[in-house]
């Protein structure tokens, strides 16, 4: 370890601008002649749009234009897509409904956008948005994923009959059934993993700007992956080919997954900028809109059963999960309750047979996609709740039941794709139990009871597959893009270093950690290394930051690139 290299304690390079108010977040960007967008959003979970009267809004002070879903469809702007193909057990592809950037006939969740008002100021846009008169015919709605497939439940998309998007499974059903048939004990439970809102501190922002002379668009947005945004907006939404579309995600105030996805407002701001003659169009979400339109996380309803032999060793695990994907399929939504979830259902335990079935359903709720851990915490929550429930029902100490079932021989191939190469779960468990004085807990509990207090203790094991790579693996599972990462290390003539990375930093501190990595390899100070990211015009390509992939995937590129730069500069050094 060098003075400033990997593991050294250095001050973060990005902090000075943040502590002095000089950070450059998307809402801080004010382009010349900017106009401001305010969306008219559905107050109903499910309704037919009978008519939209924009006349009063259009005549309001400062209003530049009012646009609706009909205008968008008229200009042949495509809808948003889900980029991970999942096939049902019967081999049929997932049933994705259309996702227009502005709804035209039907609104499918509270907050669905119905029209956009563009005005000279933010306040004028908001005032005028209240003057857009929408006549709705309210339709029955379903919000509970467990009821989405009920007979008589409202049909949300014509493409997905009975609101079922896919019925997917993993593992060996016959082996699992056999394990249950031969089991000494079976423990069953129902568990709900509730929906939640990601809520980064910085609300989402989009600025679309069209240059008619160059026929070129620029989008400034709060994105965890600007290159993926450009790809989707170009290849699927059809805003412009990639060389005519630049996406810039400057400082981003936290993402937690919710800023991975390509959102309707980004399409609308780009399209509207051209529509109004090239003036930039800026939309800034408020907190209420963030609750209504940022993708939510989790929302599973699960029934699970675990089979044990007479010695309390697990012999089988059977899982049935209904996953709520909300009203539309967001960018990576399909992968979360499938490959990011069920592949971790073995936890740290040696389970000979697992079978999991996942039904993904549409409901009249805000779309659900990846959120912090994405699928993997849902798996852990389920497995660990099951271990706790089983410990109680089997009358075994929860720590002992876990220990008894730990994987101890590596590599270990689980029945759900993953192969674990190494681990020492006994040691981590023993360390945690010692730190918490687990052995002394009964005495503490008794002492608390003597004072009329209730004391409890809980434990959980956790294993996570981070990185979501390599490309060949994720491609074979249905991912529409390769999840590799790019890096370029440039040595400038004066000897300073520029590192261009396709990953994105929104709180992770890449400007420091990546610089430390390069500093270590090239033997230069971190101050001479500049990390460049977040701009499709600067960095050749990239897949962004999510799923704990920057350390695992993006950083791996840097030493190799640095070494190549070092040997090149050694070769070119005058002798």
């Amino acid at each position, binding site marked *: 370890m060098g003075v400033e290299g990997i593991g050294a304690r250095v001050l973060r390079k990005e902090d000075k601008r943040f502590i*002095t108010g000089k950070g450059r977040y998307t809402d*801080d960007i004010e382009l010349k002649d900017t106009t401001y967008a305010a969306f008219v959003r559905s107050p109903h979970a499910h309704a037919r749009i009978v008519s939209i009267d924009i006349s009063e809004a259009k005549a309001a002070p400062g209003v530049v234009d009012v646009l609706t879903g009909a205008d968008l469809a008229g200009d042949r702007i495509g809808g948003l897509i889900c980029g991970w193909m999942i096939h049902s057990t019967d081999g049929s592809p997932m049933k994705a409904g259309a996702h227009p950037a502005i709804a035209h006939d039907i609104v499918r969740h509270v907050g669905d956008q119905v029209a956009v008002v563009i005005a000279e100021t933010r306040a004028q846009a908001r005032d005028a948005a209240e003057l857009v008169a929408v006549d709705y015919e309210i339709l029955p709605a379903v919000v509970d994923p467990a009821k989405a497939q009920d007979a008589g439940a409202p049909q949300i998309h014509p493409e997905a009959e009975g609101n079922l998007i896919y019925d997917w499974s993993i593992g060996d059903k016959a082996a699992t059934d056999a394990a249950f048939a031969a089991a000494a004990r079976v423990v069953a439970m129902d568990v709900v993993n509730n929906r939640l809102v990601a809520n980064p*501190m910085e609300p989402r922002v989009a600025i679309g700007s069209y240059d008619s002379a160059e026929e070129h668009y620029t989008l400034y947005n709060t994105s965890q992956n600007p290159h993926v945004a450009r790809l989707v907006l170009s290849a699927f939404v059809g805003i412009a080919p990639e060389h005519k579309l630049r996406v810039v995600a400057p400082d981003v105030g936290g993402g937690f997954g919710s800023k991975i996805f390509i959102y309707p407002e980004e399409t609308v701001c780009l399209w509207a900028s051209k529509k109004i003659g090239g003036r930039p169009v800026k939309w800034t979400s408020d907190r209420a809109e963030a609750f209504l339109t940022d993708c939510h996380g989790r929302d599973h309803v699960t029934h699970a059963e675990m089979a044990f032999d007479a010695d309390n060793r697990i012999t089988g695990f059977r899982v049935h999960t209904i996953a709520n994907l909300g009203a539309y399929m967001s960018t990576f939504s399909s992968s979360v309750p499938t490959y990011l979830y069920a592949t971790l259902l073995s936890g740290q335990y040696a389970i000979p047979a697992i079978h999991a079935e996942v039904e993904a359903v549409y409901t009249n709720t805000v779309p659900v996609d990846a959120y912090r851990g994405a699928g993997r915490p849902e798996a852990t929550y389920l497995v660990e709740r099951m271990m706790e429930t089983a410990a109680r029902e089997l009358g075994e100490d929860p720590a002992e039941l876990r220990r008894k079932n730990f994987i101890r021989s590596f590599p270990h191939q689980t029945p759900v794709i993953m192969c674990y190469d190494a681990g020492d779960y006994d040691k981590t468990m023993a360390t945690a139990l010692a730190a918490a004085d687990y052995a002394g807990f009964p005495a503490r509990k008794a002492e608390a009871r003597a004072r009329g207090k209730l004391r409890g203790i809980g434990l959980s094991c956790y294993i996570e597959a981070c990185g979501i790579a390599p490309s060949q693996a994720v491609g074979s599972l249905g991912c529409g893009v390769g999840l590799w990462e790019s890096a370029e290390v440039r040595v400038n003539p004066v000897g300073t270093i520029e590192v261009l990375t396709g990953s994105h930093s929104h709180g992770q501190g890449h400007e420091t950690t990546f610089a430390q990595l390069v500093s270590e390899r090239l033997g230069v100070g971190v101050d001479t290394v500049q990390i460049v990211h977040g701009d499709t015009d600067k960095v050749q390509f990239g897949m962004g930051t999510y799923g704990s992939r920057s350390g695992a995937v993006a950083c791996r590129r840097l030493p190799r690139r640095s070494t190549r730069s070092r040997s090149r500069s050694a070769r070119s050094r005058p002798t």
Partner: protein
Amino acid sequence: MVSVSLTVNGKAVTREVEDRTLLVGFLRETLGLTGTHVGCDTSQCGACVVHVDGVAVKSCTMLAAQADGCAVLTIEGLAQGDQLHPVQAAFREHHGLQCGFCTPGMIMAAVDIIRRHGPGIDETTIRHELEGNICRCTGYHNIVKAVKAAAEQSGGMAEAAE
């Protein structure tokens, strides 16, 4: 429209604004001081904290017109040139930030907390005082550490000045 005259970061400014203009909008949009952030627009998150006549205020909860005649200090005015304010330096030293979005409000609130409680402020009081500032990244631990360190340092500085 209303005419508003006030001092911002030591500079006298006068602007004509809509009556309903919030102080945070005045700072960000009228004056271009974008260091003050809007996180929730419901007075909960504290990303918009500035000082008005020396007191920490959520600038999304105050009209610009109410600040007429006042002295406003924002994050941009806290450092003395290149010399960081001790609270700014402490946030950097103790890794009290990640994405940086809540940071300006945190720092401005912390300066006011230390002014009111003095160098001996304890951790419980700091945590209680920071209830009006939300951070989504850090888990607060290092923020509290930074505030405590800056408070202790302010005591040392006061002693040295005596």
